[in-house]
């Protein structure tokens, strides 16, 4: 028994300034069309919530169900920061695996303000996400800057290495009609863009975007009855939390756990997320044909490659430099163009990652097609100990 991705759909990423529901509905309809499933035949809909768009965003499942037309389908709504989409996928997958439904629709979309993400309204001194802005002025890029500088000190990465990540992802994004930024860039352009959070420049950091993504999931039996080929299986969804003591400073925290009394776990949080997915899917990093990793910054793509086991610690720059992570390389990373080309539409992003894995595994990625992929990995990390890894196979 397995769960199959029957269809995918997206609304192009951009800064459209329209209500998020429009993007979600467009993505949902595209996914249903792709799957050849009528909305009225969907048993279960999961909406990944957006917290920046009022009440309809908090009950995204119901919002999309009403916008598509009340059909009597069961629904769920969930929020898990950047992992919201993956968690929505997991809820649908679990219900299918339990035999409680056959076909499910998962939708995430967002409409975002310009500039830095800010804490959600009001004075809330008990909320670390509010406090980090109030006391320190620590934006999300500040944390990305800390990780990048740490990487430079520990592994010797350079500004030019970071810029090379952007150049690679911009090239891939230029081939993706759903991407927001479709212009190839040069290392010189990246290095000439304004500094935001030293050592990261504007073009090292992902933007905040509008966009929507959806997938139709079904039981393998349902897919076989319909004669779907190739079958893209959702082989793992890992949503593990960190293990105490978590020794890496994570958003939006002021400090790490202390490792003075108890030594840190074998795997830090990001590595633990990927490892859990490998275990669940029964594959290893050496089997990965392509990876979508959460490049909130260029430097983080390099960290993620190592955390996901695609190379030993400190060797991601070398792989990048050798062209191994470009389309056509040994293990293409972010062949969609990544967050560098999309910008972040939080609840849609992990679903968009699964859309890319599925498109690639179905050999439908056109000019950005990875050669004969068998195993796709998508990893992501959000605030407050939420993160996810998905593995899809064919």
């Amino acid at each position, binding site marked *: 028994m397995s769960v199959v991705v029957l269809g995918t759909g997206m609304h192009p990423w951009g800064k459209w300034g329209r209500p998020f529901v429009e993007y979600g509905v467009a993505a949902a309809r595209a996914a249903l069309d792709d799957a050849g499933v009528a909305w009225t035949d969907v048993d279960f809909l999961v909406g990944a919530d957006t917290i920046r768009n009022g009440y309809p965003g908090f009950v995204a499942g119901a919002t999309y169900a009403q916008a598509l037309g009340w059909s009597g389908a069961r629904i769920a709504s969930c929020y898990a920061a950047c992992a919201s989409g993956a968690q929505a996928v997991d809820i649908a997958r679990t219900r299918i695996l339990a035999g409680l439904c056959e076909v499910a629709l998962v939708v995430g979309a967002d409409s975002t303000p310009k500039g830095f993400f800010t804490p959600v309204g009001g004075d809330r001194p008990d909320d670390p996400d*509010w406090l980090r802005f109030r006391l*320190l002025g620590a934006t999300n890029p500040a944390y990305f800057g*800390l990780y990048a500088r740490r990487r430079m*000190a520990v592994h010797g990465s350079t500004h030019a290495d970071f810029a090379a990540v952007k150049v690679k992802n911009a090239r891939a994004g230029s081939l993706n009609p759903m991407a927001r930024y479709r212009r190839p860039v040069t290392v010189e352009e990246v290095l000439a863009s304004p500094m935001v*959070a030293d050592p990261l420049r504007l073009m090292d950091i992902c933007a905040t975007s509008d966009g929507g993504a959806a997938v139709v999931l079904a039981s393998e039996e349902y897919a076989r009855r319909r004669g779907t080929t190739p079958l893209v299986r959702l082989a793992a969804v890992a949503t593990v939390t960190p293990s105490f003591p978590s020794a890496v400073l994570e958003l939006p925290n002021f400090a790490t756990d202390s490792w003075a009394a108890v030594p840190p776990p074998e795997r830090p949080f990001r590595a633990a997320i990927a490892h859990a997915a490998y275990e669940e899917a029964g594959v290893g990093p050496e089997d990965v044909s392509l990876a979508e990793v959460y490049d909130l910054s260029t430097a983080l793509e390099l960290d993620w490659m190592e955390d996901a086991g695609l190379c030993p610690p400190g060797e991601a720059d070398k792989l990048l430099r050798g062209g191994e992570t470009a389309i056509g390389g040994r293990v293409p990373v972010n062949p969609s163009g990544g967050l560098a080309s999309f910008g972040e539409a939080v609840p849609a992003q992990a679903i968009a990652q699964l859309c890319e894995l599925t498109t690639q595994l179905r050999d439908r990625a056109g000019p950005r097609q990875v050669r004969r992929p068998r195993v796709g990995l998508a990893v992501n990390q959000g605030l407050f100990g939420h993160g996810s890894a998905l593995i899809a196979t064919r």
Partner: protein
Amino acid sequence: MQPSKRLCDTPAMTFAIDGWFAIDHDGVRLLGTRCADCGTVCFPPRHGLCPDPRCGGTELHEVRLPRRGRVWSYTNACYPPPAPYVAAEPYEPVTLAAVELDEAGIVVLGQVTGLTVAELEVGMELELTSGPLADGPQVWMWRRAS
């Protein structure tokens, strides 16, 4: 880390947050908590359960954390951070450092005073002080170790 005794000889000062740091006669100290059962320390101070799920301790006592540590990493904010941060005008980039406290096995983030990113290095020794936010209240800050 000594047992807690709150001391503040500058009553006119307003703290941007209560109970996270203290200004003692011998300098500024972060206030954390320590589990009476396993000795694990926390910052910010925590109440209720020890953060180690295998410990289960419920007695967390306030402690003063070590004043010094080494830079784990650092960055700055070249653009004024959004509200609720109150940015100074004219704006000067805020420098931030994550500092691994001596002997506590914990990394604590704070603004840095008197040093820019060009003067910082990973591994450099810093010590705790305090300074005002643009709208007045004091917050803990890192500075070059004396």
